[in-house]
């Protein structure tokens, strides 16, 4: 499990968009399990599952319809689609909401149904941009255990986040980026080099120090 870290505006989403075929890079290449994303997009995309942003989901479909759509677009046999749809909905605790329109879901549910669309074709690589954002603790734990068993089964996860504790707990490889450049990358231990990930991150990215007298009026005594 690979964690991509960076402050807001560091270019995490841009990087992932270029790696998944949404944004054509000016130069450079992107390979997924040996397949060039920009030369052989169909093969590369078949090998990966990407968590879409909420705005990227066809939200006037029900959760079940959206999953079926996602499976059929990926040319899966309809029987497999139906079976996996039911299993995914059950695993994510969404069977009750399966026949509601995605537009009416809460943001946590939207995240979960998005994850399901990324998983339905059993990809070798899973790309997740901020997977735990606005997810409640219970659903977060569900997602975490799904990801862990996915990785244990040989899958690779690339996730972006700015929550250090989460990345430190889940990932074995990390990269820290800021202003569009990777500042450090490697295994978790290599990157944090003895110190905590939080401290290392702040050292690399730079921290905005509060001056001595700033916000003095906030101190009431």
């Amino acid at each position: 499990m690979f964690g991509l870290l960076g402050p807001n505006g560091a270019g995490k989403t841009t990087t992932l968009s270029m790696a998944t075929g949404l944004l054509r890079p000016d130069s450079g290449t992107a390979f997924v399990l040996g397949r060039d994303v920009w030369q052989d997009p169909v093969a590369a995309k078949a090998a990966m599952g990407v968590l879409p942003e909420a705005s990227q989901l066809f939200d006037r479909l029900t959760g079940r319809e959206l999953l079926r759509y996602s499976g059929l677009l990926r040319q899966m046999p309809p029987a497999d689609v139906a079976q996996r749809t039911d299993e995914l909905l059950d695993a994510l605790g969404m069977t009750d909401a399966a026949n509601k329109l995605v537009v009416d879901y809460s943001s946590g549910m939207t995240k979960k149904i998005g994850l399901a669309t990324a998983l339905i074709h059993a990809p070798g690589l899973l790309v997740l941009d901020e997977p735990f954002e606005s997810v409640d603790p219970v659903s977060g734990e569900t997602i975490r255990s799904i990801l862990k068993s996915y990785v244990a089964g040989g899958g690779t996860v690339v996730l972006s986040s700015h929550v250090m504790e989460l990345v430190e707990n889940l990932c074995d490889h990390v990269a820290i980026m800021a202003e569009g450049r990777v500042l450090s990358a490697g295994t978790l231990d290599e990157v944090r080099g003895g110190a905590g990930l939080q401290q290392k991150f702040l050292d690399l990215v730079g921290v905005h120090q509060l001056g001595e007298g700033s916000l003095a009026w906030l101190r009431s005594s």
Partner: protein
Amino acid sequence: MAALFVKLQWRQTFNIATKSVWAIVGLVFGILGAFGLMIASFFGVVALRVALPEIVPTAILLIGALIPVFWTVSSVMLSGQDQLAAEKFSLLPVTGRQLAAGHVAAGVFGIGGVTALVWLVAATIGWSVAWPAAVAFAVLIPLTLVNTVLIARVVAIALARAFASRALRDVTSIVLMLLLVTVGVWAQLAIGAAAAVGESYDQFGAALNVVAYTPLAATYGVSLALLDGSMVVAGIRLLIAIATAVVLFWLLERMLSARLTNPVQMRGGGTIKGGGLLERLFPATPVGAIAVRSLRYRRRDPRHVMNTILMPFLPVFIMVVYSINDVVGLETLPYLGLFLPLMVLTVVGMDLAYDHANLAMHILAGVTGRDDRAGRALAIGCWAVPFAVLLVVVPTIFTGIWDHLVPALALVLPATLMVLGIASFLGVHLPGRAPKPGTSPFGKGSSGGVQAFLLMGLGLVAAVVLMLPTIALVIAGIWTPWFDWLALLVGVASGIVVLVLGIRMGGKALDKHFPRVLAAITSES
């Protein structure tokens, strides 16, 4: 405090309007349009005052009573985007009374208020048929404005909770859109009704005298009463106008106070039942899935519902209006079905833009351009092709003139097929812009932008050129009727060829430009 609200409203309007070059262009045209409206109403009243002074009071009262109605309808339509929604202030130490005053001030000194003010000044000139009436009206201008704003605000806020339901919002936006599109017919009916009423002018005047007692037009009623020399009636109406302001302000204050602590929460619709039929009708392939999704959207997304209704509705509408008004001979009616391909051209051409960011899902799933194009064309074709036939056959049955059935069909059906193909290709290069998912069908981008016009022009030229052999045969059919049948055959065959080629070429282009198209249709957020 109230001044702050006025500033806040203008600042927000300005910020939204200057977000991009196109928004500025839109703003300029908007201002020019409003300006034109003001000038027109101004000179309209003045001209009426000079030419037909006896009907001026009636006209002013009628228009005056309609302004709050119009304002209320637009407030209700836009209530989802209320810039001064009470919820936004719930963390600030403000009271309902301050908010209410702010809402009134922002309304009076907003774009609508200024426009209305110009009208009221013009109306004062109109009242100058009698000086007491004009003076009273001028003095009451502030009260008129405040009442107009209050009526609209109170109704919009009272309905806000009902409109928090997405299902209700969807239905209303569709109904309003249809009313707007057919406004010509309603106007014609209204003029007809007015003409009928005109013959019994006394009754009409009596009805208006009743309207003059209502909050909608009480201030106008004061002047009307002074004109008739009835001081008592004028006094009653003045009391009604003042009471309206007091009661409505009190109501507004109550409702805003309530909303400060009990915000309106957006609600969704219920569950979707059934729906397996479409899935069984289409193959379980990417093309079939895209067609099913596309057809579902045509039922569930108000923006698509709009287009789907308008596509066959517009030709029918034109046929009805033309035949009522004797614009064309009855035998020409089936040919008016040619308005269908015109609609299909834009609907197919802009289908990508309507997806907005959702298109990313097709890209991420590795959908090929050809599957994308074919699925969409299939869905729209399922709707358009039967209508192409119906739009020719039904008017023929209706008029009983059968000579034009085959030639009209030989034009309308192939043109529809061709346009499906042409737009499948052109739409990749000129995706245009559409209102975002979940926003009003009238919203930003509903005109499609410059690209949509280009698409329309290029598509039309292409369709006419590609139809030339068929058109030639139809013309030959005027002298030798069996050429009509040949035209139908050649037309449908060439239509299918163009459709297939359009999907293939469009698909190839889309494979190459998927990311660029995505960037283009999501660019102006």
